[in-house]
Each structure stands twice: as structure tokens, then as C-alpha cells.
């Protein structure tokens, strides 16, 4: 995948330059990661509160740690579907007698990282992946458990386009329970989420998702996902008129129920679904739509996002 700013994203480069000049985003030490100004952060927090307040369902609310046990990547199938996007952490776990080797390698400017080994930790790629391990081995009621979760997420896809960050945050509304409830949850949230985003002045459209599964095998995985109508995205202009996903609704069937042994009263595996808001992408879409001077945004948008508080 070409992740540079190219002709498929007209105006993206100018928009990026303007964002950086305005100080809304500051490039971090790695490509594809950005520090956000407090002004940008205020938009993110406004979206968090806005979407949260829209739902009166009793639910568990969690701000998740960004780390996963490496085994969760296996159970979620993430390691097979997106091996190029995952991030696992490494540490020096050799005996102390090997330390001189590390020092020598560092001082010689060599590849010291190859002396490290995977330490069992992985960066999460989606907020809801943090929830299933907390339910592992338990039974959930047919009417389901509801969650509102947020996590800082990582996907290894270095790009200059702020619409494709390597480090971003996601707020998700998750259901785990019987099949009918899981399907209904995704349907309701696709509609609610799309309405909420439209109410902020964004031109949104709901389309079948087109996840970047890895390689040729990924073409089959993606085709399968679309034919099963498993996942939909809400798309809008983010950093260019050429739209991208700012939210998505995903029905997982009993995949996570089986993988994490989450059962219903009947003993069958629980079904799950989620709806995710990509907080940085929505913030960028709002800046793209309403301009970089937040003080001049429409009063209704400023009010919805509590930007005047």
C-alpha cells in the first residue's frame, strides 16, 4: 500500500501543511504519529462526551490500557489477518552476561534491537479487543452486556497522512450476548452513529467495509467480509475530499465468543458486535469541513462538542 500523500488524495498535502502550521498537530519522532495540541485535544474530548451522552443504555464504561497480552492477537485472528499492522514489544531478556554484547552493539551503532526478544506484550489495534479477555470463561445473559470503551490504538502503517495515524484513539460501543441482540446493536449504532456525525455538519455515507487484509489471501478475506455484510463503515472527507472511514460497525458473529469461551446460558458461544468512533479522524474531518479556526465553527457544532466551556 502506498501511504505517501498522492494523487488519490487531492488537497491532502496542503491540508496537512496547514494543520502543522496552525500547530494543531505536531509530528512525533516517528512517521505517522502526531502530538496533538490542547486545542485539537479539546475537539477529541468534545466528541467523546457528545457520543457518550447520546446513549442512555446501562453499560460498563472503561478507559482501557493500551497493552494486550500477545495471545489476544491470536484469538482475535488479528495476527493472521493483519500481520503487517500489528506491534509486539521486545525487551532485553538475556542473562546479564550477555549485556556486554548489547553495549558493544549499541556503541558500534549496530542493530541492538535484534538482541531483544518478544516479551509477550502487544499494542492493541482496536478498543474492543481489550474487553473480550475480561469476559473470558464467563457466561453472559442472553439480553447481553453493554460496554463503552476507549483505548489508544496502534496500527503499523507509516504514512504522512494524518488520516492514517500509527497511534490513534477509538471509542467503541460493544455488545456481547445473544445473536439477535448483537445484530440489532450494530444496526442501531450504524444509524445512531451516522446521525450523530451528520449532526456535526459532516457529509457521511455508510458503505460496506474494505479492510486492508494482508496480501492475496487478504483479497479473499475482504471479499468474504463484504459478502457476509459483517462490517460497515461510515465514511466522510477527512484530509481530502476523497472520503475515508471515520467510524465502523462490525458484527463478529460468535467469533470472539468462541475464541474467549464467552458463553450464553444455553452453553452456546456468545455473539458480539461493536460500533467504533475514530476520534482523531472525526476531529480531522471536522477541521476539514469547518476550517482550522475552531472559533469560527457553527454555533451548534461548538455547542454539541462543548467547545465554549
Amino acid at each position, binding site marked *: 500500500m502506498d501511504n505517501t500523500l498522492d494523487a488519490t488524495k487531492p488537497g491532502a498535502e496542503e491540508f496537512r501543511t496547514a494543520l502543522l502550521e496552525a500547530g494543531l498537530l505536531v509530528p512525533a519522532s516517528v512517521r505517522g504519529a502526531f502530538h496533538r495540541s490542547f486545542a485539537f485535544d479539546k475537539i477529541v474530548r468534545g466528541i467523546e462526551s457528545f457520543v457518550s451522552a447520546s446513549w442512555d443504555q446501562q453499560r460498563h464504561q472503561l478507559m482501557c490500557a493500551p497493552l494486550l497480552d500477545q495471545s489476544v492477537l491470536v484469538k482475535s*485472528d488479528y495476527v*493472521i489477518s493483519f500481520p503487517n499492522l500489528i506491534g509486539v514489544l521486545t525487551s532485553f531478556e538475556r542473562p546479564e552476561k550477555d549485556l556486554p554484547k548489547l553495549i558493544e552493539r549499541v556503541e558500534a551503532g549496530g542493530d541492538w534491537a535484534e538482541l531483544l526478544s518478544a516479551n509477550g506484550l502487544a499494542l492493541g489495534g482496536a478498543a474492543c479487543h481489550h474487553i473480550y479477555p475480561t469476559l473470558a470463561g464467563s457466561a453472559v445473559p442472553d439480553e447481553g452486556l453493554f460496554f463503552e470503551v476507549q483505548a489508544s490504538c496502534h496500527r503499523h502503517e507509516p504514512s504522512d497522512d494524518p488520516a492514517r495515524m500509527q497511534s490513534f484513539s477509538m471509542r467503541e460501543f460493544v455488545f456481547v450476548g445473544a445473536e439477535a441482540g448483537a445484530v440489532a446493536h450494530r444496526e442501531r449504532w450504524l444509524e445512531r452513529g451516522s446521525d450523530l456525525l451528520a449532526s456535526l455538519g459532516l457529509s457521511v455515507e455508510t458503505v460496506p467495509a474494505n479492510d486492508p487484509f494482508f496480501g492475496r*489471501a487478504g*483479497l*479473499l*478475506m475482504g*471479499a*468474504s467480509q463484504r*459478502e457476509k455484510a459483517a462490517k460497515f463503515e461510515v465514511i466522510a472527507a477527512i484530509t481530502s475530499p476523497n472520503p475515508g472511514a471515520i467510524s465502523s460497525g462490525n458484527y463478529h458473529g460468535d467469533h470472539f465468543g468462541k475464541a474467549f469461551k464467552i458463553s450464553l446460558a444455553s452453553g452456546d458461544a456468545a455473539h458480539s458486535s461493536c460500533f467504533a468512533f475514530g476520534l482523531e479522524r472525526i476531529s480531522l474531518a471536522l477541521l476539514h469541513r469547518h476550517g482550522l479556526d475552531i472559533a469560527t465553527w457553527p454555533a451548534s457544532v461548538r455547542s454539541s462538542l462543548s467547545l465554549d466551556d
Partner: protein
Amino acid sequence: MSSAGMTIREVLEANGRLPVSAMTLRDDDDLYQNGLSSHASVNVMLGLENAFDVEFPDELLRRDTFKSVAAIEAALTTLGAHVQSDANG
């Protein structure tokens, strides 16, 4: 059972992670209804390419292509695979 049908079933046994034996499936039994997952279908696809020495073009990388032994055999035929001869070769 044709030799291709046998080879396809062997690939399914080795890669399909089916809860049932592929040898007991009829040619037109729905593999997905018999437990073939999306991920396993990828392994089946790669296994078939290896067994029949073919490469599925992008337009055949669809769910339907792998939905039954018969569908797989039909796809292999369009690729010119030697489905009537000994594909284990």
C-alpha cells in the same frame, strides 16, 4: 470420486479445520455451513494452489469460489488445472 475431488478433499482435510471429515462431504455440500471459516478458506486456497500448481487470479478470490468441492473443481478447471489427471503428481 474424481482424483481432483480426492485431492481437493485432502487439501480440505489438511487446511480446512472442518469439524467433519472432508471425505464424507458430497461435492455440492456447502463448506461454510460445514464449518469452513474465512481464515481456514485462505489456507485452503493456498493449499489448492500448491497441490494443483495454479494461482487463483484476483477475480476468483471470492467466498463463492470455495463454497463447495464442486465449486472449487469448477474454478480449477477454468484455471486449466489438470483436474482429471493425477494432480498429486
